[in-house]
């Protein structure tokens, strides 16, 4: 801190500190603390707020634990988000490996440009593209029907549609961390393993993946978090039978009119995401400082 003042002088340094304090306390900590406060209070009519019934309790969380439908959707959101992370990993890994180990600089440049273009376009439009593609009378069904692969059009909206749209939306968050971590692997190590008779499968399993562990963990953590907290993909590509936990939260706020319960559900989602993030990073021995690169 004293270095900051020494370097920039009292006026500037004070402005910097004030800006950062405003951000961290006013825009990060205070909102989250207020959300916790909401989550622990009952939903009361205005007249009773501050009255004898306005006491802290875990009732709102217990409501989630006891309400079968919401609980099922919560657990489904968790494992479906994990599935999104896993599928995204499988889809991205070969390309990340090729880019990091085999591609020429020109190929890498071109591939990265091609990869980033869809991601400059916003998530809602990307999801809309899938909405059009997967429509009941849409192009995918038309192609599959004309090829004779299916006899009747398939209803893609639902779990399958949500999965396809989410994997699509989060490819870059998986690809770049893996690419960066594989890039630092010496080609000589792969050649040595090959000379010693290891199969391609074994080289990936025993050499490349352990080396890229940190990048894989980072990619998975981000993808999981984004998927669990996503609203647009389930809202557009889902069906009544594939509701996402974020949709339940939204309904508490804007249809059910119970902000306290909504805040409690959001808090549960936040705690879950932070737990998954921190445990995964711990297991993969990744430092938080290396995640956000």
């Amino acid at each position: 801190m004293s270095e900051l003042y020494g370097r920039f002088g009292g006026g500037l340094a004070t402005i910097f500190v004030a800006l950062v304090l405003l951000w961290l306390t006013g825009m990060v900590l205070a909102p989250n603390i207020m959300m916790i406060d909401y989550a622990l209070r009952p939903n009361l009519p205005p007249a009773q707020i501050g009255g004898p019934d306005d006491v802290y309790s875990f009732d709102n969380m217990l409501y989630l634990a006891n309400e079968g439908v919401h609980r099922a959707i919560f657990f489904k959101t968790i494992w479906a988000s994990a599935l999104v992370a896993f599928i995204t990993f499988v889809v991205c890994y070969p390309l990340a490996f090729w880019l990091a180990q085999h591609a020429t600089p020109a190929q890498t440049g071109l591939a990265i440009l091609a990869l980033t273009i869809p991601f400059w376009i916003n998530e809602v439009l990307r999801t809309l593209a899938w909405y059009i593609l997967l429509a009941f009378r849409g192009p995918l069904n038309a192609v599959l029907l004309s090829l004779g692969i299916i006899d009747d059009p398939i209803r893609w909206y639902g779990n399958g549609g949500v999965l396809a749209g989410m994997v699509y939306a989060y490819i870059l968050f998986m690809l770049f961390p893996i690419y960066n971590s594989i890039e630092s692997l010496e080609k000589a190590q792969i050649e040595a393993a090959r000379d010693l008779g290891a199969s391609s499968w074994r080289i990936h399993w025993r050499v490349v993946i352990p080396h890229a562990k940190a990048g894989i963990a980072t990619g998975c953590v981000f993808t999981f978090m984004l998927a669990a907290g996503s609203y647009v993909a389930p809202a557009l590509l889902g069906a009544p039978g594939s509701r996402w936990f974020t949709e339940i939260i939204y309904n508490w706020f804007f249809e059910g009119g119970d902000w306290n319960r909504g805040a409690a559900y959001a808090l549960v989602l936040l705690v879950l995401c932070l737990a998954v993030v921190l445990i995964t990073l711990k297991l993969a021995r990744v430092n938080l400082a290396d995640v956000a690169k």
Partner: protein
Amino acid sequence: MNAADRIARLLFAFYMAAFFAYLFAPLAIMSAATFNASRFPTVTPWQGTTLQWFTALWNDGPMWQSVWTSVIVAFFVVLVAVPVGTAAALLLTSLHARARGFLYALMVSPLLTPGVVIGIATLVLWRQLGVGGGIFLIVLAQASFIICYVMLMVVARLQRFDRTQEEAALGLGASKFMVFRRILLPFLRPALIAAAFLAVLQSVENYNTTLFVRGFDTPLTVYIATKVRTGLTPAVNALALVMITITVLGAIAYEVARRRQAAASGGDQG
């Protein structure tokens, strides 16, 4: 080359084709549907080629209103996020290791928070203060995590800064403020421009956070998502096509500028 290698190559070629088809087919179909006369955006069946949806887009008043809302929000997000993110980066890099670790964790925590939670937390705090959803809250909620991106980009640039320049300027009698304005800020300029650019993109594309704090204001992403429910027409595709075109041109311009710069600096990493 033996048979197994050839099969592996074939498989990889197939994978690459599938990957890029997966990447571009949805966008290509969405763009193509703009020119189909069908009322619902699709390419099957093709009901005749038309440009009518561009006219429809041009005449879509509420859509332009939502574009305007997004532009205002993005403008203020940049105004908040770039100075605060820069201040955070400068503060972070002048701290000692232990304090830095804790502050860093706190500063990147919004990136690890689901977007809906950021929106909800902002909403409940400000309701307590008597402020409802609207452009003001959208800006605050978006900026709270976009600041992290700015901070990370500025920190990355600061790592290549040569402090002896500052010392030389001070030795020559410049004030500390002068050193900041004339040496550090110009050095940071490319990072600040890039960060402002990223902030605009992040702001305009945001949906999950914005949805909760929007009140009665309707930014572009919310408008598009609502359209899906209330009756989608290819006018939205025309909008998507315009945005894709701008994006591709922007990406090409960026790539050309980068190559020119790389050539000019003779392979220098700066």
